[in-house]
């Protein structure tokens, strides 16, 4: 276990464990309450596997009423709750608490309503991201956000993390594609936001909920916007002698008013690892490789392929290949999509980071990473969503070597500090969770963080829902609520007044 500390378990709650089990069994009958250690084991971690913690109890409700009663009971009895979808969080968002009830939403797995006229689909939160597309693709529709875990991750988890993916450069993140939610507050109250219509009648709580990492409410129903699939898609595979050339090419494409469906970059180590693994016929004598996908009507795609090719040539591209068939396009992507497991083959373990930077800072950040790599004595492979500046450095380490996990985490933290320093952010799409929790002060002041925690207080005054995530220091709501006022004259007598 590593340095990130979770809140100290409440001994009184631990002592009442069997009493809580009985209370939950009265709410969720049958096998919906799990308290046997072996059966709880699969829930002890999410996709941030370096962190493990057995939950107090696992409960799998099947109805909104059950969720509401679980929450109400936990609220009244001061028991913490950790919501969980498919458990694919890369930031530890679903890491259990020793004194917390883990509420798995995976029995909420039904598609409730497919409405093609309104281009809306209503689903339960346990439906997978890809499951939505599967439900509508017979009419040519799809759900646009496509996190790489889309085959497994749940839409409820996508809401919690505001998930992105390769195509969000053109089609937006989860938050731009969600129309409505039903959720249960910590008190057990059920609230509906939005629907098949647009915008909010009051505060944009739908926007606030999206990306709130399971700290504000438990989502029980989701309405999303679906789109007709683009008529066609073609890709260019472009190699560059330096990463600077590649970075400039990205900027020039955007500058020309072209927003590709996807624009991904890989560095040398990632290119080689991917090529060795899937044999995508990537050029090996380049420092940077871009995959640029253009999608839309055929006439537009053909036209833009030509434009992008010109821009690539002007930026000293040494290799350019243009997909002439769907099969070839998929081959271009095969290496990129296999980049993580490919890196997994050349290193026993790796840590996947997730900062975002302004695009123009790419050369500077890459150079900085090379220096950091030497400092920490660990290798780093880079794949990134180049179009939106979202980096995924993969830090290679061996957990069996003493000190290497600590070194990898320190390296990762340095990379994220570098991202913030050049005007970027700690996390582009994986979430803060526990992983980046203690780095939050690198990006935010104490006042910034306090105001965020006050939002939490409006939803969950007792800090019972998923505590220990996102915020490095937990302040009690009563303390946050205090106002320090200084009565007196207007403190700026020279301010213009009329």
């Amino acid at each position: 276990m590593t340095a990130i500390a979770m809140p100290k378990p409440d001994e009184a709650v631990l002592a009442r464990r069997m009493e809580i089990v009985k209370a939950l069994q009265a709410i969720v009958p049958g096998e919906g309450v799990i308290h046997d250690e072996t059966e709880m084991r699969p829930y002890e971690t999410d996709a941030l596997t370096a962190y493990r913690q057995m939950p107090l109890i696992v409960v799998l409700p099947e109805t909104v009423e059950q969720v509401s009663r679980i929450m109400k009971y936990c609220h009244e009895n001061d028991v913490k709750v950790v919501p969980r979808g498919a458990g694919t969080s890369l930031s530890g968002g679903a890491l259990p608490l020793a004194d917390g009830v883990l509420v798995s939403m995976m029995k909420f797995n039904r598609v409730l309503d497919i409405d093609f006229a309104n281009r809306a689909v209503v689903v339960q939160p346990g439906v997978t991201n890809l499951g939505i597309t599967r439900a509508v693709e017979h009419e040519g529709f799809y759900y646009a956000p496509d996190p790489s875990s889309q085959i497994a991750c749940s839409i409820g988890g996508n809401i919690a993390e505001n998930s992105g993916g390769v195509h969000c450069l053109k089609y937006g993140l989860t938050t731009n594609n969600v129309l409505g939610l039903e959720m249960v507050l910590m008190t057990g109250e059920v609230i509906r936001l939005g629907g098949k219509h647009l915008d909010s009648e009051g505060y944009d709580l739908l926007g606030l909920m999206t990306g709130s990492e399971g700290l504000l409410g438990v989502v029980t129903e989701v309405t999303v916007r679906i789109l007709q699939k683009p008529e066609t898609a073609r890709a260019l595979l472009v190699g560059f002698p330096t990463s600077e050339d590649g970075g400039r090419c990205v900027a020039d494409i955007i500058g020309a008013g072209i927003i590709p469906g996807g624009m991904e970059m890989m560095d040398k180590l990632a290119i080689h690892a991917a090529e060795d693994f899937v044999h995508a016929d990537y050029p090996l004598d380049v420092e940077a490789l871009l995959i640029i996908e253009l999608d839309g009507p055929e006439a537009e795609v053909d036209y833009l392929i030509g434009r992008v090719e010109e821009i690539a040539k002007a930026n000293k591209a040494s290799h350019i290949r243009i997909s002439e068939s769907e099969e070839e396009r998929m081959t271009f992507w095969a290496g990129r999509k296999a980049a993580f497991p490919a890196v997994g083959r050349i290193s026993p373990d790796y840590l996947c980071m997730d900062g975002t930077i302004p695009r123009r800072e790419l050369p500077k950040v890459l150079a900085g990473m090379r220096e950091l790599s030497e400092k920490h004595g660990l290798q780093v492979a880079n794949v990134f969503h180049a179009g939106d500046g979202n980096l995924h450095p993969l830090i290679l380490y061996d957990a069996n070597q003493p000190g290497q996990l600590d070194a990898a985490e320190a390296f990762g933290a340095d990379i994220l500090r570098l991202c913030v320093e050049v005007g970027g952010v700690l996390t582009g799409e994986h979430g803060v969770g526990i992983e980046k929790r203690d780095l939050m002060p690198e990006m935010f002041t104490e006042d910034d963080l306090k105001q965020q925690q006050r939002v939490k207080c409006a939803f969950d005054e007792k800090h019972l829902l998923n505590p220990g995530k996102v915020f490095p220091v937990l302040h009690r709501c009563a303390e946050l609520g205090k106002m320090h006022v200084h009565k007196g004259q207007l403190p700026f007598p020279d301010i213009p007044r009329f």
Partner: protein
Amino acid sequence: MDSILKPRTAIETRDAIAWAAAEDTPLEIVGQGSKRDLGRPVQTAHILDLSDLAGVDVYEPAELVLTLKAGTPLSEVEKLVADQGQELSFEPMDYGPLLGREAGRGTIGGAFATNLSGPRRIKAGAFRDHVLGLEAVSGRGEIFNSGGRVVKNVTGYDLPRALCGSWGTLGVALSMTIKVNPRPEATATFVLEGLSEEQGVEALCKAMGSSAEVSGAAHLPRGLEGGPSQTLIRLEGFGTSVDYRFKTLESLLSSYGKPGRLDTDASGTTWLAIRDVLPFSGRTTPVWRVSVAPAASPAFVRKLRESMDIDVILDWSGGLVWLSCEDGLSHDTQIRRALSETGGGHATLVRADGATRVSVPVFEPQPSPLAALSRRLKDQFDPKGVLNPGRMVAGV
């Protein structure tokens, strides 16, 4: 009213709000005051005028981002980005003409506070979908930052989005970073005439469900200038692509009649008129803005016509109903009942005199747990209730 406070810096703005909180004296927050006839009227002893807090901090066309102070005039922002071949793709509408005021006024802060959008809402989103970062002052008199200057960012709660559309009741924006987009090379509008509302909305929904990448979809039962109905579908992008997609629509919608085509200039004028609801300008009748599921709008309008004489303009593929009622009455209960009986949504009163906007719920009333949650959120940002009290809901 006894004074207008006109800070010139972020610190002066913070100090003004800290003072108001200490003195328990509420403030009305204004930029150029262009939206004071919208929402519930606020009556306070002091006005906080942010129009001097103006200017662009950073504009990086290649990064597609713009950081600017809240009091910057919207018209200046639009000109600045247009000069670089870019635009605010959420197409913020101008309420001026509809409210019988001058056109072209308002600040970026006002557009943010009211989450403005336009016909392109259905493709590109509203202001909420373009705000990346925010610096604001809470009702506690504390400056806080949230979000960032990049599009992909999930670091912390999305406060920029939460404050967008909060009508200045949670915090006062000092500056913000917004996303800009390339201005499309070409635009054309596909026009069908003489369709009923049902047929028109059906055609619009079909177009929206196609791969034609529609960026505007409106049905005007009386046309733009009082004639046969017009069903309008806007296509934008590279020239060859627009022509290609126009043909796609021709074959997709062939059963609705032979289309006309408006090219760049005519198309631009038409969508500006729809964006700013120009057919309803020059009158004083109450106007409502109703958000519904697109395909449900004909049923909603039909239901309402059973008991009221109304004029409508349907934008957003039917999802936005601009509704002009008979004069003299506010009709809120009738409209909201018809809405809940035809699938739900929300109705906002946008044109009415001040007295009416005090007595009638301007925004759709919320069910009690949601209203209580919104109230708790307000209390967390503004415990003394000094920021625009009553602007959205009486007593909040």
